[in-house]
Every structure is written in structure tokens, then in C-alpha cells.
């Protein structure tokens, strides 16, 4: 029960159930009734309550995201977006969910039944595990595990397995191509993602997510822009979102790995994807936007929520704007661009931290300045000088000529 008792929201409920002596300071109402020697009951009850709350919050969050994404993309695309069901179309995702549940569940004859059923479950379940470890506020977190950074990176990479399983088990050629693409792409993008996260860990001096937030005096997005850009791009790829949505590429592979899924199995994929977007945004807020930190006249939870919505909006913006990259371009972007950029970021940070292990305010500002110089320099070198040779396709800005009379 060690680290979980540090959590305020856990402790609060626990102390209103258990008569433990150590709890009396937390208790506001005197309603506790479970004796101290049965504390495991109060522990289990509290845990179940919070699991229930977190899962439902995640599901409601997905519904809100589906609605928000549609409304926002509607605005991007000069149309209204959903507006029929409920105020501002808020109930549209509910109607969607009902529709998906009542669809006929089809199992293709060629499918590998067990894996076919397991794949959508594997898509959704791991994502739930990210939410409890994120610090949402000064005291609002469920658990603070000491290897939080590694944990979230590990959990977010499970979905590539699910995608491969779905593609393989469907027995459909569109699906298998989607699945193979997913493995190639997701595994490649794990690496720049992990290396960029190492930059965050170097600055924080700890793998715990709470410490990462506590030690971010300057938000990492400003402090190490190179790491932020590589992490953002890599997590867009991890999420299979545009411009990296080659695994489900509608215009090429119909729906990629989920072509043969219907009914609630498809619903689970849909749910998993949107939930992964929410979870990844929370990770980005924690890593790069200094989590719940902000001027204290607004509660820390509100700060976190605002930043969270902002990052989700960035992802939606990406989706509305960019066309899709081709598979070879995606791979060369990962291996010949992001990989090196994230390495440069880590090297520069490590050097500076080695020189100033405990930087003061002015030293932090100097480090930020150096990071920005490195950022512009390396982006210029990679983007303008090296990129035509890297991608193998020499891009020139062209115009038309006109026929002579």
C-alpha cells in the first residue's frame, strides 16, 4: 500500500472508510466505520471506487473527444459538424455508440478466432493503465510509481502488438498489409520517442512523473524544443493519426487492420484509438508542458485540463491539415531525421547538465537559449540541407509553363 497512500484522492476516500489512527487528520466528516484491523476491506473498496471512476472518466473523455474532434474538424473544413443530437450535437457520440453496439457481429471465415477476438481487447485495456499514473494536480493523482516514464512508454507501445494481431487474424489482405505497416512504423517511432523522453528524464533527474512535473521550472516544450518536436511527431505516429495513419489509410487500405471488424469489436478499436490520443496528450502535458504547474490563482487541476485540451487540439489540427506520408518516407523520417534529432537533443542536454548539475535561474535561461540555437540549427541542417538526399526524392518548388501562340 506504500506509494498509493501518498495520493490525496486515494487517502481522502480511504480515511472516510477506515478508522485507522493515522487517518484522523485527513477526515472531514466522521463517517468512517471499518475497523483498523480490517483495513484491507477499506483499501479494496477505495481501489474499486477509483478504478470505476477512472474507467468511466476515460470513456466519457472519449465521447467528448469524438464530439470535439468532429466539431473542430467541421470548423476547419468550413462546415458545421454534428449539431442535431442534443445541444451543439453533444449526444452524437452516444448515438454512435448505440449504433455500433447494435450492429451485427461478423466473424470472417478465414479469421484466426482467438487472436481475432483478443486484438481489440488488447487495444483498449493497456491504455486504461496510463491514466492512474498521471499527476493531474498538486495532490490529485492516484498512484506515483517510481518508474513512471518507463511505464507509460512501455504501455503505449503495446498497441502495435494489437494492430499486428488484428491484421494477421482477420485473414484479409488489406488487414495484413495494415498490420505489417503498423509494426514497421510503430517500432521505428518507439526509438526517437524513447530517446526524447530520456531528455525529459535528464532534466528532471528522476523517472517518476511527479518529479518530472516538480522539476520543470521552465516547461520542457520551451526548455528543449528539439525534444518536444521529436516527441510530438513520434507520438503522432504512435497514435496512427494523420499524417502517419498509413495503418488504416482510408484511401488505400479501406480501413487497414480493422477492415474486417464490425460491431463492438470495431467499437473497441475506435475507443482504443481515441483513448490513446487522450492518454498521449496527458503524457505530453506532463513531459513537456510542466503538467499541473501554473500561476496558483487557478487550481492546478484546471491548468492540467486546459493544457490537456490544448494538446488534443494540436492532434486534431494535424489531422485536419496534413496529407498522409508514404511508408518509405515515414521510415526515412524516423531513422534519418527524428532519430538523429532526438540524439542531438539528449547529447546537448546531458553535456549541459554535466556542467551545471544544479542550474540556477540564470543558468536555466542560458541553457534554454543554447537549446533553441541547437533547435534551429539542426532543423535547418536536417530539413533544408540534408533532407533531399535523405528521402531520395528531390523536392523542387515548381510552377507551370505556358504554351506559346
Amino acid at each position, binding site marked *: 500500500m506504500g506509494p498509493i497512500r501518498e495520493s490525496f484522492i486515494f487517502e481522502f476516500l480511504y480515511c472516510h472508510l477506515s478508522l485507522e489512527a493515522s487517518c484522523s487528520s485527513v477526515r472531514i466528516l466522521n463517517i468512517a466505520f471499518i475497523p483498523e484491523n480490517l483495513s484491507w476491506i477499506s483499501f479494496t473498496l477505495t481501489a474499486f471506487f477509483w478504478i470505476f471512476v477512472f474507467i468511466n472518466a476515460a470513456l466519457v473523455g472519449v465521447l467528448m473527444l469524438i464530439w470535439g474532434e468532429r466539431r473542430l474538424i467541421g470548423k476547419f473544413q468550413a462546415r458545421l459538424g454534428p449539431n442535431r443530437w442534443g445541444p451543439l450535437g453533444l449526444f452524437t457520440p452516444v448515438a454512435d455508440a448505440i449504433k455500433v453496439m447494435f450492429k451485427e457481429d461478423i466473424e470472417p471465415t478465414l479469421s484466426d478466432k482467438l487472436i481475432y477476438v483478443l486484438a481489440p481487447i488488447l487495444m483498449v485495456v493497456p491504455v486504461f493503465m496510463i491514466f492512474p499514473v498521471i499527476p493531474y494536480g498538486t495532490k490529485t493523482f492516484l498512484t506515483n510509481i517510481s518508474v513512471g516514464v518507463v511505464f507509460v512508454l512501455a504501455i503505449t507501445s503495446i498497441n502495435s502488438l494489437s494492430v499486428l494481431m488484428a491484421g494477421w487474424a482477420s485473414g484479409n489482405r488489406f488487414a495484413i498489409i495494415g498490420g505489417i505497416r503498423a509494426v514497421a512504423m510503430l517500432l521505428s517511432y518507439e526509438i526517437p520517442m524513447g530517446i526524447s523522453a530520456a531528455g525529459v528524464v535528464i532534466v528532471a533527474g528522476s523517472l517518476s512523473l511527479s518529479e518530472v512535473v516538480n522539476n520543470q521550472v521552465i516547461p520542457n516544450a520551451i526548455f528543449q524544443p528539439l525534444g518536444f518536436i521529436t516527441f510530438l511527431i513520434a507520438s503522432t505516429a504512435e497514435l496512427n493519426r494523420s499524417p502517419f495513419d498509413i495503418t488504416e489509410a482510408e484511401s*488505400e487500405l479501406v480501413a487497414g487492420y480493422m477492415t474486417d471488424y464490425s460491431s463492438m469489436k470495431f467499437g473497441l478499436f475506435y475507443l482504443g484509438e481515441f483513448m490513446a490520443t487522450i492518454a498521449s496528450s496527458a503524457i505530453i502535458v506532463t513531459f513537456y508542458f510542466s503538467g499541473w504547474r501554473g500561476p496558483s490563482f487557478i487550481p492546478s487541476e484546471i491548468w492540467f485540463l486546459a493544457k490537456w485540451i490544448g494538446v488534443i487540439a494540436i492532434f486534431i489540427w494535424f489531422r485536419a491539415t496534413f496529407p498522409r*506520408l508514404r511508408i518509405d518516407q515515414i521510415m526515412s523520417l524516423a531513422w534519418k531525421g527524428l532519430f538523429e534529432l532526438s540524439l542531438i537533443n539528449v547529447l546537448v542536454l546531458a553535456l549541459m547538465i554535466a556542467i551545471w548539475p544544479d542550474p540556477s535561474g540564470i543558468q536555466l535561461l542560458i541553457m534554454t537559449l543554447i537549446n533553441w540555437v541547437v533547435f534551429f540549427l539542426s532543423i535547418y541542417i536536417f530539413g533544408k540541407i540534408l533532407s533531399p538526399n535523405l528521402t531520395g526524392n528531390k523536392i523542387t518548388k515548381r510552377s507551370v509553363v505556358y504554351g506559346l501562340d
Partner: protein
Amino acid sequence: MSTELVTMNIGPIHPSTHGVFRMRVTFDGETIIDAEPIIGYLHRGSEKLAEERTYTQIVTLTDRMDYTASMTNNQAYILSVEKLSGITPSDRGVWLRMIAAELQRIAAHSVAIGFLINDLGAWHTPLLYLLREREKILELFEMMCGARITNSYLRPGGVFMDAPDEFWPSLNKFLDDMPNRLDDIENLLTDNEIILARTQNVAILKKEDAINASITGPMLRASGVDWDLRHRNPYDYYEKISFRRPLGTVGDNNDRYLVRLHEIRESLKIVEQCLDLIEPGPVKPEEVPFLVRPPEGESYVPIEAPKGELGFYLVSDGGISPFRCHVRAPSLINLTLLRDMVIGYKIADLFVTFGSIDVNMGEVDR
């Protein structure tokens, strides 16, 4: 490591086959080894049906061939009928149908560019911007003839009714507004790094190959051949109009996109010139009978439709309906080179190339 080729049926029901096109594609991993186009899923026998209809009724059949460019289909057919039966069209009728045809070209190219970018995976944003502009043209058509897509506006000798008074201010407003919207589209797309990387040097069509395969339209001009029937073989009053013909330099997917975009700008200029030259008068000569009965003979008038050279070959035996009607459909002939263009490229390039050819299955199968 031993690998296996995968053969896949793409279509006839697939999000980016622009209708009901089917390809049997063989892949080696992600690389295309072979692509066999299979057509005929939208065959409605329009050419045979034409033998049972009067010359005026056939106009409605032509609407449904290339349903993104009904006006130019009408125009190609009517020009052929006029040549067959020796009808001289009225001035105002010709100007009206030129305005209609150029507006239709803008609409058709908007659809072509929009769906090309959609095939690139752009989540409908540029498509919807372009469809919004197309919508304005459809509203103009609605004012002209009451229909938006299947217009049936043209008749032997001109058009069936004059555009109403409120049409002209709306058209002027559209012409003023459209260049700005095109600038928006160019800002969004033309120098977009991802679009450049995806489309440049992909599916290059050489000049000689294009001419040998009798490719026409923007696809031919993207390969650098200055061949526009409005300029080379002017029909209607195109010789009174001056316009430039945008040509590509390489002949890849990016050039096909650029040529279409610049043709929209030229079409706008043509409409403006038509507006200067149009004069009041009858839209159709009085002496043209409702039931056209051309003398025995045959005629073929090629026109520059949005997708290429479109012509109706009509044979008359002196009756009220043609003895034989054959359509030279640009979509079908442009599609024949798809296989040669995509071999060796990646799966994703197949759809982009297909989108850049800009076929319309209604016209391919007829």
C-alpha cells in the same frame, strides 16, 4: 528470406476508386508488380440507348456520362448534331454555352483536385474547400436551367432558355471571389512539403508515351505537350477568346495537379471575356425544329472537355434518331496507361496516380 507476391482485388467497392473501378494488383511487399484495370461495372449502354431516342432526348443521356461535367458533354454532343444537320447556332446561345462549359470546367477541375488530395490522405479538408466553390457553380447552373448536375441545358442551335437577370450579378460575384479562394487553396497545397514529396517524380508520363497512347486533356498538357482543342481546333467562338495553356515540365502527379489548378484560373478569364462579348438576342434560332431530322451522313466534332478530347461520332440514316452513336471518352483512353505508370511504385502511389488521371467511371463505361 523467401517472399511471396500478393494479388489483391482493389475495388469495385473501395473508398478511392472514384466509383466502381476495379484493379487486380500484384504486390511485392509494398511495391506494385502488376496492375490490371477491370472496367464495366457502370455500363449502362448509353450508346445503344441513343439509337432509340430522338436527337433532343439524347442530351439527357450525355449528362449522365461524365456526371461531373454535364455541360461539356452536352456541348460535344450538340456540336456534333449541329454539324450533322447543318444548323447554325444563334450568337447568344453559343456564348451562353461557352460560359456554361467553362464554369463546368472549373467545377470538374475542383472535383479532380479535391479528390486527388483526398487520395493523398488529407482527411477531406481541401476537398471540402473546393466543393464549396463547386457548390457556387452548381447554384449558377440552377439559375440557368433549373438543374444542378444533370443539366440538359443545351439544344441544337443554342440553349433552351436564357439565363435570368439575377444570374449575371451572381456570376460576377463568383468571378470576383474565386481567384481569392484559389489563392487560399494554393497556399494550403501547392508548396506543402508532404504533397510535394508524395507527388513529385511519381508516375512520370513521358511526352512520347502520352502521344502514342492518344492521351488528351490536362494529363497530356502536364507531360508538356501544347495540345488544347480550344486553341488548336477552335469550336464555338473560342477563336475570339485569348487564353493561356498551362503546361507541365516533368509529367508527374504534381504537374497534373498544377496544370488543373492553373486551368481553373484561365477558365475564369475566358468567362470574363465571354461576359464582355455576349449580346442580347435569341438563345436559339426560331427555325430549328423540335424534332431534328438530319440528312444522311456522319459527323464527329472533338471538344476539349475537362478530362480530355470528348467527341460524339454520330451516323444518321435520315431518321429522327441516330443510326449509330459512339463516344470518344477521354476517361477511358486516359485510363489505359494506368498500368504502365504505376509499376514499380508503392501501393500508396497507385491511388494518387489514379486520382491524378481524373477518370469518371460513368464516362469510362458509359
